[in-house]
């Protein structure tokens, strides 16, 4: 039996133990899912700091609400759904306008101009990275999330559907639209 298969066989038992308050069992679950949950959080926020914060909060809430997990979906999808809800809340909070003046505003402008960190590898071809980032910025958060969850995190359409709480058909159409938009945006670069 491979390591992954052995883990899958043990997962139900680990969840049961964690439900009873066994923090060691929950630690195994956290270590197993941390990379993927951070990746999903990043696809939803495009900001590594926000992603880390949301993923951490998602794990804590998962632990607090383990009693409500009835295994109707997979544990991973349940975790993704928690982080997706947190991302929606974050976006709502951030959509409110913040008025900054004086030194505070200048500091924020410097931070925004200097960071450029949106979850993309800085060592990957500078110009292509810039174009890709700009192209992703052109997409709506929903279209961006769908294509990143599929292409970067490798989630199935069903998993994306459950994570984002939308029908599978919507996932499919959003994915098609996002691909066509990105292809269009990167057309010039590709033809060089």
């Amino acid at each position, binding site marked *: 039996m491979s390591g992954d298969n052995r883990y899958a066989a043990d997962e139900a038992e680990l969840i049961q133990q964690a439900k*009873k*308050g066994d*923090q060691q069992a*929950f*630690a195994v679950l*956290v*270590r197993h899912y*941390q*990379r993927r949950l*951070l*990746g999903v959080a*990043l696809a939803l926020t495009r900001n*590594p700091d926000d*992603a*880390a914060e949301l*993923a*951490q909060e998602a*794990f*804590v809430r998962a*632990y*607090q609400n383990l*009693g409500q997990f009835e295994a109707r979906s997979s544990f991973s999808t349940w975790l993704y759904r928690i982080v997706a809800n947190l991302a929606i809340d974050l976006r709502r909070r951030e959509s409110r306008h913040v008025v900054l003046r004086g030194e505070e505003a200048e500091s924020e402008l410097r931070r925004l101009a200097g960071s450029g960190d949106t*979850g*993309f*590898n800085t060592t*990957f*071809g500078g110009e*292509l*990275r810039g174009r*890709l980032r700009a192209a992703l910025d052109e997409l709506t958060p929903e279209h961006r999330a769908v*294509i*990143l969850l*599929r*292409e*970067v995190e490798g989630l*199935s*359409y069903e998993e994306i559907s459950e994570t984002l709480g939308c029908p599978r058909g919507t996932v*499919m159409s959003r*994915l*098609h639209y996002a*691909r066509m938009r*990105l*292809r269009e945006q*990167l057309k010039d670069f*590709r033809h060089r």
Partner: protein
Amino acid sequence: MIECTGIAELLGAFRDGELEPDKVAIVARHLAACTQCEMLLSEICELGETLRASAWEPCLDGFAEQVLSRVARLPEPFSRRLRRGLGALGWSWPAAITSASLATALASWLVLMTFGKPNTPSITAAGSNAVTEVRAGESAAQGGLAQALGLSYPGPKDQVVISRLETDRHHVALWSEPEGTTTVIWLPEEPEISE
């Protein structure tokens, strides 16, 4: 043959392996004959590779420890405390529920037997050194039960002091009037505690 527009919408799902089998066959047949759609499929694959290659690898240093540290500081939920307590007693949930139901039923019966009837006996608390009237149909045993439970229920309407006995002997005296329905109980006074 289906037009390229219809096929283009299916190419992404075709490449992702998410297309229904009948549509897979249609797309595959179309791709075999259409260079334009074949090129579009190749571009979709290339786009995916570009996104993956440029994606950020999350930093996991200390992440799990931070999560677990927060989890360790959480107050334990009541349900878990209860479950742990029952576990320590060697009880399962069904046993606990059955026991709780039985205890509730017993307590309800005791309360009903003591206070629930219209002709409730009125018994003064031990130590009043008074003789009180107990209404018809009530036995001394019931009064004794209430006393044993420490229940004091001096209802102003039902309770009538008939007389007071003067005695040094510490025991309970009881009379029943043959012609009436009255029972008389004497309760000894609590010995005074000298300071």
